[in-house]
């Protein structure tokens, strides 16, 4: 496998504070209602506890990106490091990528009338910095790694509650949330 940067999302550490989503919004000045990174609560049928668990998701920088495949004007490109970048100047706003991505990563900017999505902060990465969302997470639940070489024992590609369109081969990896231990009076 070629070099492929991917997000590592540790749902055991994530506390659902939305700081990552806000950091992304602040850096890229996204329009009202648009968020390139979203923090999804896990439903009770997946995580049936009083405590909540969360999936912090942005673009998965897939190995076979359907956004890139279906864009009629080739506004998407995949870099050597696996990051899928979008050239907004080339985009004509057909909405094909928005409909095609099962993760809802590309969004239609209602003012520009062109698509946009997480760039994995490639400018920051090229400057040797972490992406803004990774940098901002107060509990270290987000990181990035080259998934072609990193040791990822204990990390899964398709946790419950995450679409599984295998042809895309999304690059994000997850650590499952810990199941809370029930403590009864007699256990204490």
């Amino acid at each position, binding site marked *: 496998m070629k070099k492929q940067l991917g997000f590592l999302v540790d749902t055991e550490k994530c506390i659902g504070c939305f700081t990552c989503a806000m950091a992304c919004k602040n850096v890229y000045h996204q329009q009202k209602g648009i968020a390139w990174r979203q923090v999804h609560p896990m439903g009770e049928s997946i995580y049936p506890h009083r405590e909540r668990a969360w999936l912090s998701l942005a673009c998965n920088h897939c190995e076979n990106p359907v956004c890139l495949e*279906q864009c*009629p004007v080739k506004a998407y490109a995949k870099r050597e490091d696996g990051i899928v970048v979008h050239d907004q100047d080339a985009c004509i706003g057909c909405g094909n990528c928005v409909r095609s*991505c*099962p993760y*809802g990563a590309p969004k239609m900017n209602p003012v520009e009338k062109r698509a946009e999505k997480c760039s994995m902060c490639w400018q920051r990465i090229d400057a040797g910095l972490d992406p803004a969302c990774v940098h901002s997470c107060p509990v270290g639940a987000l990181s990035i790694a080259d998934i072609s070489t990193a040791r990822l024992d204990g990390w899964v590609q398709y946790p419950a509650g995450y679409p*599984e369109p295998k042809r895309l081969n999304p690059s994000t990896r997850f650590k499952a949330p810990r199941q809370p231990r029930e403590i009864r009076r007699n256990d204490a």
Partner: protein
Amino acid sequence: MNSMELPLVIFTVLSQGAVGLVALTAARQWAADGGGDLSPAPRTAWLTAMALLALGAFAALFHLGHMGGAVRTLANLESAWLSREGLALGATGALLLAGYLSPGLRARGAATAAAALGVAAVLVTSMTYAPAGFPALNNALPGVFFLLTAAVLGPALAAPFLPDAHQPVAMRALRAAMLVSLVINLVVPCVWLSGGTVMRLTGEAFLAAPLYWLRMALLAGSYALARGGRMPAWMLPLLVVQELLGRALFFMLPVHASVNIGNPF
């Protein structure tokens, strides 16, 4: 609920109606070459198909955020169905023009080629609207729906251009297409109910939508009243309205996979 995508509703219904009309006209030109009657001449039918295709293509421009970039949509023929769709519909339009300009209007070859390419263009178009993000549509169903639109609107649009002797055949084709469309459009949402969560949500959205039932009632009513050997004049607008309604629901009601993130799939 998604946006109605009105430009795409108009584009897909008109272009598929045009393909249906071309297919019927081509069949008639074959029949005439076998010694049948080719009066009145099918020139107006060709012209009508071209006008419908052009109007549909014009409407499609309005769904782009930046219409000026429409010419660039042919840039990704290697993998984007939207690029291939533009090429296939453009080629169909060119063949229609060739058929229209052919001397003697006995251009069986052009008619057959335009009809075959038109059907291929409908299937290519359907791939654009079978995106991975919508599990209920990420299969052959958009192709089935789109071909049914061509099959229903084709005879209905062709009827005014046919001689009296051909009216009963067109009426039989129309009734058969309406019946198949009715059955498939009733069965598909029920089948979706047995799929994964997102597919089931899509099936439930259809079955709970009053507009879906209105569309089914219009189609069933048209079928019940389509008696005799000639299409009544009121039927064409009714059929166009129910197809437009069906296509609007096709864009509005399917549930996107991302809506369900965090829940079982």
